[in-house]
């Protein structure tokens, strides 16, 4: 029971029609609350990395051709408006994103969802509860891709005059929460869906209120003055004030990293593995802790150490100044022959943690091993443009690295997209123009290994190569801190971008 008021970091209520915007936070609060996808993340445990579990699909398998996937849909699932979930509705939803000719095509949702399912070639409703999806090439990561795609109600859309804008005000999904009221930019109120198909996830609260509070200090003040019960991402320096007043900080490792993505274009100093390793070993990550109020996990690789795909890399990027200097000397650098690199950073940005102080820390650390860093500070939006443009673009102005924070929850987002030679700009986000046949082969293997366990092994191997070759400057992982009023009970923070709010209740 009770009402949970959440201060989000978004500036606006995420898109309510199905496929959400506002990044991870959108999916967290407006995606997996109001909607479901065919395949979902298991959010019940705080102790282990989340894995995929059946959502609206109960089973799935790939055919002999390694292209055609068959999904069995869950029986008896209804949307909030009462209409049933059928294979046809799923097809309708996929058309909403992929078929620009379709009546229900929504450019806004498409912009958010289409790129998440690059593998999908075609799809078909076999019967009410059976669906097939065909991929262009064999791709074992399809389940991960489908975990992005949320199902909205076709009946509701029709009832709303086939107008997505109207749907936005009164959306209908199959999720555990129903959107009750919605004031753009101000608040959204969610109430439990008592008919939710998974009884264990029927919310205990009477209501959950979402309030956009983009400014961290406004968020802190709102929590401390009792206007909200929960805030996302409290500013580290406000945490003592919160804990001092009895508020609870909840955090957990999750697939997020804070790195420098390195340019591997010809002439880049980062092409020398010794320099890469030395840089990684020059950073005393533990000493960064106080800056972030302890809310970080020092990086040991690209993925968080707790990831199921971490593997057992041989290279340990932990702080070792002597070894780092030795490597630098070997590479031909020294106090009198310093290396200068140029780094793109932004002053702020979602998920960037505290980019300026952290980067300055990195700068100071690298200076110890004779690497002088010259910053090029650009707005977060501009940085996204430069990230898409790739290291070779003129606008990047010769920067050798870009400080980026990545969502690394699945094989594609976590590993493939950063270093796949097919994804060099303008085709994708291999910013550094990295090309390595060995890595390419590993990516291929991931896509063609359909057995989950075998796939995990390949993924581990891939990440080991990430680390052993020191392909990035690994710095930290965020721990998704959130500050909670002591009245909030029953919250289990999963090691995931998304969270389960159904277990929460408010003490009186």
């Amino acid at each position, binding site marked *: 029971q009770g009402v949970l008021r959440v201060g989000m970091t978004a500036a606006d209520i995420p898109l309510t029609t199905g496929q959400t915007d506002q990044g991870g936070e959108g999916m967290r609060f407006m995606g997996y609350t109001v909607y479901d996808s065919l395949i979902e993340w298991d959010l019940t445990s705080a102790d282990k990395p989340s894995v995929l579990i059946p959502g609206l699909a109960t089973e799935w398998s790939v055919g002999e051709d390694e292209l055609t996937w068959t999904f069995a849909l869950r029986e008896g699932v209804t949307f909030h408006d009462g209409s049933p979930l059928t294979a046809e509705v799923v097809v309708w939803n996929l058309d909403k994103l992929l078929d620009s000719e379709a009546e229900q095509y929504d450019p806004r949702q498409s912009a958010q969802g289409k790129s998440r399912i690059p593998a999908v070639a075609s799809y078909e409703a076999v019967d009410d509860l059976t669906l097939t999806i065909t991929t262009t090439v064999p791709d074992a990561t399809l389940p991960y891709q489908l975990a992005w795609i949320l199902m909205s109600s076709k009946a509701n859309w029709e009832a709303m005059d086939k107008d997505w804008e109207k749907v936005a005000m009164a959306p209908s999904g199959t999720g555990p929460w129903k959107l009750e009221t919605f004031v753009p930019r101000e608040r959204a109120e969610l109430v439990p869906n008592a008919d939710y198909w998974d009884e264990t996830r029927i919310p205990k609260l009477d209501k959950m209120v979402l309030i956009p509070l983009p400014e961290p200090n406004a968020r802190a003040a709102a929590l401390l003055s009792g206007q909200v019960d929960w805030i996302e991402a409290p500013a580290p320096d406000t945490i003592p004030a919160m804990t001092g007043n009895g508020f609870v900080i909840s955090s957990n490792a999750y697939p997020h990293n804070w790195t420098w993505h390195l340019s591997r274009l010809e002439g880049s100093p980062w092409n020398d593995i010794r320099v890469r390793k030395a840089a990684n070993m020059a950073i005393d990550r533990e000493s960064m802790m106080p800056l972030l109020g302890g809310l970080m996990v020092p990086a040991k690789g690209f993925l968080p150490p707790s990831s199921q795909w971490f593997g057992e890399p041989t290279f340990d990027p932990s702080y070792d100044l002597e070894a780092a200097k030795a490597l630098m000397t070997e590479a031909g650098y020294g106090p009198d022959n310093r290396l200068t690199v140029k780094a793109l950073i932004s*002053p702020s940005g979602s998920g960037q943690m505290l980019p300026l102080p952290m980067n300055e820390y990195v700068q100071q650390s690298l200076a110890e091993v004779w690497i002088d860093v010259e910053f090029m500070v650009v707005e977060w939006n501009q940085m996204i443009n430069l990230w898409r443009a790739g290291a070779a673009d003129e606008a990047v102005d010769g920067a050798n690295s870009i400080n980026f924070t990545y969502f690394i929850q699945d094989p594609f987002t976590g590993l493939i997209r950063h270093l796949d030679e097919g994804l060099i700009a303008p085709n994708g986000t291999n910013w550094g123009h990295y090309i390595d046949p060995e890595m390419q082969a590993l990516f291929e293997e991931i896509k063609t290994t359909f057995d989950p366990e075998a796939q995990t092994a390949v993924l581990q191997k891939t990440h080991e190569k990430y680390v052993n070759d020191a392909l990035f400057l690994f710095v930290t992982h965020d721990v998704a801190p959130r500050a909670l009023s002591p009245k909030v009970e029953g919250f289990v923070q999963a090691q995931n971008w998304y969270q389960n709010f159904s277990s929460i209740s408010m003490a009186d």
Partner: protein
Amino acid sequence: MALADTTTLPTPEKVEKSKGYWSGVGHRLVRDPLTMFCLAVVAALILSAAFAPYLGLADPYKGSMIARLKPIGAPGYPLGTDEQGRDMLARLIYGGRLTLFIGLMPVVIAFFAGSILGITAGYVGGLTNTIIMRTIDVFFAFPSVLLAIAISGALGAGITNSLVSLTIVFIPPITRVAEAVTSGVRKLDYIDAARATGANAWTVIRVHVIGNVLSPIFVYATSLTSVCMILAAGLSFLGIGVRPPEPEWGLMLNTLRSVIYINPWLSALPGVMIFVTSLCLNLLSDGLRSAMNVRD
């Protein structure tokens, strides 16, 4: 009586060396302790900002994670350290550079640009006046803060962009005042008297108009400096002004906001600097206004 009455007249005043207008202004200013105090404060700020590198201050950009958020008076850090362990004293003084620069420069530029536009419009009149002043009217349709934020917001953050947007904001009011003052002066008999000598427009403007309009425009412009400074700091505070890691008071105020729970005094420092400076600028402008007012 013959020519007695047309030759030299006895003067009622004592025969003393007559003082120029500006020395009179200076004289009155010097005798106004509050204004002199404010002048001293502003001068100290400007000088310390200008000569910051020679004051033996710590590096305003160099921080240390270990030394972050030292309270005011901590050993080695007279005003403590900021959230990145940078010396606050150094940052505040270096911060004065940028803050005063983007706080005063737009008014300076606008003073020249606005004076040229306004004096031209006011003296020439007619169509020229109509074109200039109607254009200015359009800019007046935007509340100043809004206009600054709109332009800065569209251009994006950065020192140059802030300068551009603030200058654009302050040209219209200065132009309008300049125009009003000039067309007022234009109607005065001494302008007619000067024109009656056969002097061309430029000579009349140079000798008779500028000297008389510049000081009211100047006084008006000084009254805008404090607004400009607060606005400039406000832009940085919003995140569309100066970019980190540059030291700038508005930006420092912003980045130190979250520190308010841990070390409120520290986080108040940039705000105090903005407040004190703008207070002094305001008082200075008031003092200047009354010193320039010959009527008293």
